[in-house]
C-alpha cells in the first residue's frame, strides 16, 4: 500500500494541531454567549440621549465661577484637599510598609517559609479590601471627612507598597551587603550602610507611582463621604448641575495630568 499524506501515521497527529483552534472558537463563543445572555440591557432610561447632550453642554460650558470663590468649598481648595489626602496617605503608608516588606520578602530559595509566607498572606488580606469599603469602615471610626480618606488610602497603600517593596528586596543586588559583611560589619551596619541605600531609590520610585494612583482614588473617595473633590462631584451629578460637573471633571483631569508628569520627571531622575 502506498503511503499518502492522508494515511501517514505522522499526519494523523497533525489533525489535532490543525483543528485545535476550533476548540478555542467554541470555548470563546461559549464564554461570550454566557456573558451576553446573562446581562439585562433593559435598564436604559429613555432620557439617555438628552442627558448625554446636557452633559456635553455642561462640559463645554463649565461653571468657571466655582474655581475660586473664597469659601473654602470651591474647586481649588477641594483639589488641594484631595492632593493632601493622597500625599499624607501615601507617604505615611510608605514608612509603615518598610517593616512589612522585610517581613514578607523571601531571600532564600526554600519553597515554604513561615515568616515570608505569613507576611505575604497579611499583605494580600489588606489588599482584598476595596478602598471604598475601607473608607466606609473608617468613616464609622472617625466620622465623615478627609481624615477617613487618609486612613483608607494609607491602609490600602500598605497592602500594595508592602508587596512591591518586598519584591524589590527579593530582587535587589546583594553585592554591597556582602562587602560590608566581609569587612566585618554587624547586622545593623549591613542594614544602614548597604541594604537601605541600595533599595532606597526603588522604594521612592514605587512610592511616587503609588502616589499617582492615590490621587485618582482620593478624588473618588469623596463619593462615599471621605473628603476631597468627590463629594461635590456626586452632589452635582445627583442634582444634574452639569456645568458644575464639567468644571470638577476639568479640575480632576488637570490635577491628574500635572501629578503624573511631575512624578514621571522625579522618577526619571531617580533611576
Amino acid at each position, binding site marked *: 500500500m502506498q503511503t499518502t499524506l492522508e494515511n501517514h501515521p505522522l499526519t494523523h497527529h497533525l489533525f489535532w494541531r490543525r483543528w485545535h483552534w476550533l476548540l478555542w472558537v467554541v470555548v470563546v463563543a461559549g464564554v461570550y454567549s454566557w456573558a451576553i445572555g446573562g446581562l439585562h440591557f433593559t435598564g436604559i432610561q429613555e432620557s439617555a440621549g438628552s442627558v*448625554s447632550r446636557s452633559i456635553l453642554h455642561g462640559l463645554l460650558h463649565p461653571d468657571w465661577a466655582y474655581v475660586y470663590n473664597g469659601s473654602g468649598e470651591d474647586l481649588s481648595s477641594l483639589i488641594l484637599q484631595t492632593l493632601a489626602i493622597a500625599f499624607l496617605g501615601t507617604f505615611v503608608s510608605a514608612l509603615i510598609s518598610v517593616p512589612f516588606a522585610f517581613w514578607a520578602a523571601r531571600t532564600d530559595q526554600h519553597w515554604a517559609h513561615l515568616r515570608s509566607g505569613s507576611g505575604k498572606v497579611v499583605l494580600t488580606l489588606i489588599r482584598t479590601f476595596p478602598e471604598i469599603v475601607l473608607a466606609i469602615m473608617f468613616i464609622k471610626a472617625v466620622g465623615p471627612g478627609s481624615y477617613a*480618606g487618609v486612613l483608607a488610602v494609607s491602609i490600602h497603600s500598605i497592602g500594595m507598597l508592602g508587596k512591591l517593596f518586598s519584591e524589590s528586596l527579593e530582587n535587589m543586588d546583594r553585592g554591597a551587603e556582602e562587602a560590608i559583611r566581609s569587612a566585618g560589619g554587624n547586622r545593623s551596619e549591613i542594614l544602614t550602610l548597604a541594604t537601605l541605600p541600595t533599595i532606597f531609590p526603588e522604594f521612592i520610585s514605587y512610592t511616587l507611582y503609588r502616589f499617582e494612583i492615590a490621587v485618582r482614588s482620593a478624588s473618588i473617595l469623596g463619593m462615599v463621604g471621605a473628603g476631597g473633590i468627590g463629594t461635590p462631584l456626586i452632589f452635582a451629578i445627583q442634582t444634574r448641575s452639569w456645568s458644575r460637573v464639567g468644571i470638577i471633571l476639568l479640575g480632576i483631569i488637570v490635577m491628574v495630568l500635572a501629578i503624573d508628569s511631575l512624578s514621571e520627571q522625579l522618577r526619571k531622575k531617580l533611576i
Partner: protein
Amino acid sequence: MTNSTLDLPKRPWRQRYHVAAIGWTLVLGVLLVLSSLMTGANLGTFLSNIDQFLALLVQMSHPAWSYLHVILQPLYETIQMAILGTTIGAVLAVPFALLAASNLVGNRLLRGLIRFFLDLVRTLPDLLLAAIFVAVFGIGSTAGVITLAIFSFGMVSKLFYEVIETIDMGPLEALKSVGATKVTMIWYAVLPQILNQFVSYFLYTLEINVRASTVLGYLGAGGIGVYLQRSLGEFNYSATAVIILATLVVVLVIDGISNHLRRVLL
C-alpha cells in the same frame, strides 16, 4: 609629596553637608505637616474611636455564609460585565493604538493628538466614570459595561501602541516594496506579530476589570457592588465580609486562568 597620595578627593560643600538630602527631607516634612493640617488627620481621634472600628472588624470576622447563595448571581453578573466591557474597550482600542504608534504613523501632529486624547481618557478613575454613566443610562449593568469599556479602552490602547512600536519592520518593508496598501500591510505584517501580546494584555486588563467591577455597583452600575452597598448601608458587616471573601475567590480564579493562558500564549 608623600602626603598627596593620602589626600582624599575634596567634596564640594553641597555634598559634604548633604544639602540636597536635607532639603528634600525638609520639603517632605513641611508638605506632610501641611497636608495633615488640611485633612484634620489626628491619631488621637482614631485611637479614641478604635473600639468601634474593632467591633466592626470582629463582626466581619464572622462571615454569614448563608448570604452566599444571594450573591452568586450578582457575582456572575460582575464577571459578565467585566468580559463584555473589556472586549468592547479592547476592540475600540485597536484603531487608536495603530494611529498612535510612531513606527506606523509618520504624522507627528495626528499621533500627538491621539496620544493626548488617550492620556485624557486615562486620567478619569473608574468610579467617576460609573457615576456619570449611571446618570446617563440609569441604574443597571449597562452603565457598568460602558464604564469598564471606556476604562479599559484607555489602558489597553496605551499597552497596545507600546507593543506595536516594538515590532520587526522587515515584513512591513517587504510588503511596501511590492506595493501593498496600508490596510494589507497592517493585516499581513503588523497583526500577526502582535496578536499574541494583544491577547495577553487583553487578559491582563480583564483581571483588572474584574477587580474594578466589584465596586462599580456601589454607585448603581450593576454587579456585586450593589449588594456591597446594601450590606454596608444596613450595617450588616458579616454579609459584607462574605461579599469581600467571595470577590477575592473570584479574582484569584480569574487571575489563575488568565495567568495560565498568558503563559501558554507567550
